[in-house]
Structure formats: C-alpha cells, structure tokens
C-alpha cells in the first residue's frame, strides 16, 4: 500500500510522441450532425498514453470528455462520427476498422467501464452469465475455464464469488460498479477506459473504489484513462491530467505540477470550485456561467465569456496550444512561453 503514496511522475514530455506509447491520439475530431447544424464535440485532440500510465481527463458536462472516450473505443453511433484524426492503439489505427476487426482488440486489449453500471449491466442475466457472454465472444468456450476466471476476477475486486449467481438488482451500487471493473479485467487488458465510474457512489464507496482501481493497476500494470468532473478525486491517483473545455484540450501536464501551478484560468477555477474540510471557511465562487453552445462556439478563446482574466484580444484571437515547462496550455496569458509575473 505504501507505494500508493509515491505519486511518481513519468519521465515524459506531455503531448510529444513518446517511444512505446500504447495509445496515440492525433488531431481527433468528432462531429454530431444535428438538425440545427453540425456540432463539433471534440476538436483536434492529441495525446499519448504510456504503458501502465494513469491519465485523468477532467472537465464539466458537455465538454466532450465522454465523446472523446467513445471515439477512442470506436463506440460512437450516429449522429456522432469521427471526422478527422487517428487513434493508434498498439501500433494499429482503430479509426475505420470494421466491427469484426475491432472485436479482436476490444475487451482483450482495451476494455471500457461505463458510468452507470445499472444501465450497463443486463438486469435479467446473472453476473456469471454476463461474464460468460463476454468470454465466449472472445473465443473462450470451456465452461470450467470461464467459471474459474469469473470467480478469480470477482475476488480481485473484493467481491465474494457467490455473487456470480446474483442479478444486478441484488447488488449494492458499489458492488455493481466493482463487478463492472471485474468484467473489464477478464482478459487483463493493456488499457482500461473509465467514464466516471464513481460518480453514482457516495464518498466512502468512492474512496475505496479509487484505492482498489489503483491497486489493480499497479498489480497488473495496465494503463487507465479516467474521466471525471471532480479534480479533487483524481489528485492522488493520476500521473497526468488533461483538462478539456468546450471540445478542446485547454491544459495538459503532470498531475502534481498542475496542482502546484495551474496555468489556465479554467483549471484554476476547477480547483477552487470545491470547498475543503480543513483550514478556514472561505467564500468561493466556482465558475459562474455555463459552457458555450458548441453549434455556435465563441470566436477566439472558448472560455473567454467566463474567464476572470479575460483580455480584449481573447474574444477575437484563436488561441493555439503553447508548451511551457513540459506542460501544454491554450491561453493567451502564456503567449510568450513564460509565466507572467
């Protein structure tokens, strides 16, 4: 457990291509074709995930973080579709692969844990039947083998294997989420994608789930992409953070570095949005306003209408990504490549 305490930074140059990355996302864009026009939910997102790395993606509802996950896992359904960019997973571009080709990758090498286990699990099948279904779909047909592996993964997440014969409604919310994670572990994948797996749980269950995920990750060495809107939750568990706003990456860098020195005003706002149980009670403001309508995004910086440090130019100038001490930030404050003041 003590190894959990060391929040080590990977030796990396975030955003730059690193040797041996298992996932390379380049200039990925996703459009939703709606009646009122085309909505670009994800715009030119690029990032890498190294083997065994724990990457957090943070942002408000509607910032495109779930759409990005679905695009990586090739799970988008119309009206959404990838309109540009590549997703290279273990050397192979997943964009444009057929379902048959994707079956070889999905669940064996890359698995997904959805936000709501209640909706993701089939209510009329026992847990064992759902595990068996996933294994048969990937060529494991021996009944003893299926039973043995199912019991094994359930034990890994701290659930007694007797619950294999339970139906989802017989499990508590925490146990349902744990069995979803167990299901994702069936083939010991190299990458597990998690979409707010703890948001339906209360604090105590959430905390023990995060510790559990981190333990499994350290034991089996898989990489994790973890999506959340709560920055305080991922502080101690992620190696790297990527903050998204209105479909774009606004800041990305090492978790520790970002918490010590957040650059983008949006990141600062997110960090100051949650009250603390220690120290003096200080009035907070959160981030007033709401994200822009992506069918009609603001010119210039998309955060400008809500930004406390907004300048005149922010409303008109498109903001490119800048690199600063190994961190990336999309903000005109850092135009000169240095932190002002």
């Amino acid at each position: 457990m003590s190894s959990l305490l060391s929040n080590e930074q990977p030796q990396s140059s975030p955003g730059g291509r690193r040797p041996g990355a298992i996932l390379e996302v380049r200039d990925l864009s996703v459009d939703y074709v709606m009646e009122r026009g085309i909505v670009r939910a994800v715009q030119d997102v690029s990032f890498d995930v190294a083997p065994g790395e724990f990457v957090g993606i943070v942002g408000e509802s509607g910032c495109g973080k779930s759409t990005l996950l679905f695009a990586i896992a090739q799970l988008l359904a119309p009206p959404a579709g990838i309109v540009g960019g590549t997703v290279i997973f273990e050397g192979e571009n997943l964009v444009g692969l057929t379902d048959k080709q994707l079956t070889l990758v999905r669940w064996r090498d890359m698995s997904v844990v959805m936000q709501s286990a209640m909706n993701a699990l089939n209510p009329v099948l026992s847990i064992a039947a759902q595990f068996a279904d996933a294994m048969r779909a990937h060529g494991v047909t021996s009944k003893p083998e299926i039973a043995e592996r199912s019991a094994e993964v359930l034990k890994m997440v701290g659930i007694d294997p007797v619950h294999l014969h339970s139906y989802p409604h017989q499990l508590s919310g925490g146990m349902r989420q744990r069995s979803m994670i167990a299901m994702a572990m069936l083939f010991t994948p190299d990458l597990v994608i998690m979409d707010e797996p703890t948001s339906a749980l209360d604090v105590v269950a959430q905390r023990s789930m995060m510790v559990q995920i981190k333990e499994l990750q350290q034991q089996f060495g898989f990489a994790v992409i973890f999506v959340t809107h709560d920055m305080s939750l991922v502080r101690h568990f992620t190696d790297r953070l990527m903050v998204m706003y209105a479909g774009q990456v606004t800041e990305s860098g090492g978790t520790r570095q970002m918490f010590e020195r957040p650059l983008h005003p949006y990141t600062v706002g997110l960090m100051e949005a949650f009250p603390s149980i220690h120290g003096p009670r200080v009035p907070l403001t959160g981030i007033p306003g709401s994200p822009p309508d992506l069918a009609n995004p603001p010119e210039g910086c998309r955060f400008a209408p809500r930004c406390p440090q907004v300048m005149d130019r922010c409303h008109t100038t498109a903001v490119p990504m800048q690199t600063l001490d190994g961190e990336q930030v999309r903000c005109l404050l850092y135009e000169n490549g240095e932190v002002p003041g």
Partner: protein
Amino acid sequence: MTGQRTSRVAGAVAPAGAPLLRTDQLARHFRIGSGWRRQVLHAVDDVSLTVGEREIVALAGESGSGKSTIARLLARTYKPTSGEIYFEGRPLSQLRSRRDMLRYRGDVPMVFQDPFASINPVFRISHGVLRSLKLHRPELSAQQRREEAERVFTAVGLTPPDEALQRFPHELSGGQRQRVGFAQALAMRPKLILADEPVSMLDVSIRIGLLNLMTQLRDEQGVSILYITHDIASARYVADRLIVMYAGQIAEQGTIEDVLADPRHPYTQLLLSAVPDPKAELNVGAETDRGEPPKVINPTPGCRFRWRCPLAIAICHEVTPRLAELAPGHDAACHVAQSGAEVKAFSP
C-alpha cells in the same frame, strides 16, 4: 436533548426559543417480502432532531443511511411508523384538514435531487411557480402572482426574471434548473426548505453557486434549510449544524465546526477520512474501510456500526448506544466515546 422533553399539548403555540421543527423518536419501518419471508426493514429508527430558525442543518450519511426517508417523513410523503414531528410546536399528526396540510406544505417545501426529472418539460418555467402561487396563496391576483414570481426568480439569481420565466426547461442548464427548484419553493414563503441532495447531480464548477444561494436564502429571506448530502465538505461550506446518520440512526450531531474538528463517533471519522483533499498527501493506511452500510432488517440490539468499527468492544454487540452529550451541544451515540476513552478509528 430535545427528544427527552415531554410532548407539548396539541395545538399549543410554540414558546419563544423553541425550534422551528423538532422530531421526537421518529421511526419508519417498511415491510418487505411476504409469507414466510416477511421481514421488517428499519429505514429510520429513534431519530430526534431539531432545526432552528434561520439555520442550515446538514443531514449527512452514506447511501441507505435513511437520510432521504427522513426528508420524505418531514414532507409528509410517508407517515411515521412511530414518533412525532412537531412544526412550530404543533404535532403533524394533528393536521387533518386539507387547508392545514396545504399550509404545512407551503411552509416546508422540498427541492429535489434531479433537476432534469423534477420540472415538467412541456410547460414554460413560469407554469410551476404560478401554479403553486395560485394554490398556496389564493389571495394574490394574477398580476400579483406574476410580480411575486419575478421577485423569487430575482432572489435565486435567474435574471432577467421576465425572460427566464418564459423559457422551457430544456433551454436551461442543470444549475439553472435547480435554481428554478429553489424559486418554486421560495414562492410559497417557506420557513423550512427540505433540500435532498440538491447539488449532487450538478457539475463541481456550478455547485458552489447553488451552495452560495442557500446561505443567501438563509441570510436574506430568513428561511431554514435541511440540507441532505453525502458530501461533508459542501456541508461544512453552508451549514451551521451537522447531523451524521448511520443505518437509520443519528450517530453524531453538533455545530459543524465542533464535529469536524473533533469527531467523536468512529463513523464520522470514517466519513471525514474519505473526503478527497487535494491539498493533503494521500493517506492510505491499514484502516482503509471496505464495508458498506447494512440493510437494517429485523435488527437485534447493538451498535449498527459494530461490524465496520475497529474499536468495537463487548457492549457494542449487546446494547444499542443512545445519543449522549459529550461536549456542550455535541452528541454522539458511541459506547467507546461515552466511556471517556479517546476515539481514533480512522484518521482524516
């Protein structure tokens, strides 16, 4: 403890200094199963709590701890199995006439957890507010109702109010919808708002705005709020007093700073240790808890937390602990704490 006070005569006027709302050994049980498998689920047991005037009381606990059942008991959605609720000194079981019930519901409205499910999507936002005004304040003319709706919309920060009232629910964000929920409650000139997890479905970035609204309503409109949550950090931000529930019973209560600075019940300590604190180092020790709150079915005497408690002693398995005052205004229901020993079960 107010719970031990003798019940007042029905219909008596509340003496000065009496709490706005008081419950006396409130219990709600549900029968589950049938035939041989009939069992009784104790959702709420022996809850005596008070809410004062101009006070925000946070009711905190894990899922299944009975906090929403208490909200529904107070909203008269459920009838208590036993025990009594007193509002302004009057027992609620004496409310019989439709007029009395209407008045109580206007005095104690509820704001719900899910802002996407609690507003009718086919009507304009004005519909709900105007309708409840018509029902609860029949003395107002149509023009006055309109003005009153604009006043409450301004009070909750939905400006300009005339424009906001004309919108449809789908045009509003989650945070704005929850403000509509508070505006609807406010229109009835309430004395106490029951807010059941009002911010848990909102983004972290806009939660603060709603929490600020709650303190503003207390300070400017003089309403009390029962804030039901599992998020202790947000409770600390808005509340004056904290009541911690576990498995249907009150584990600990006191002013929020007292309880957070010096939690006496092991369960409160567990809750505090689980709050993510980005400013502190990660503290994962041997005391990491993997348990879940029990479903209290056909309970036997004993502390309901004993299975998860690292400090449980023999008496915890035999006698249900009762709330006792350990410091002025700070009560806990724990045998170990009441014996005077230092309780350090989970470090924050």
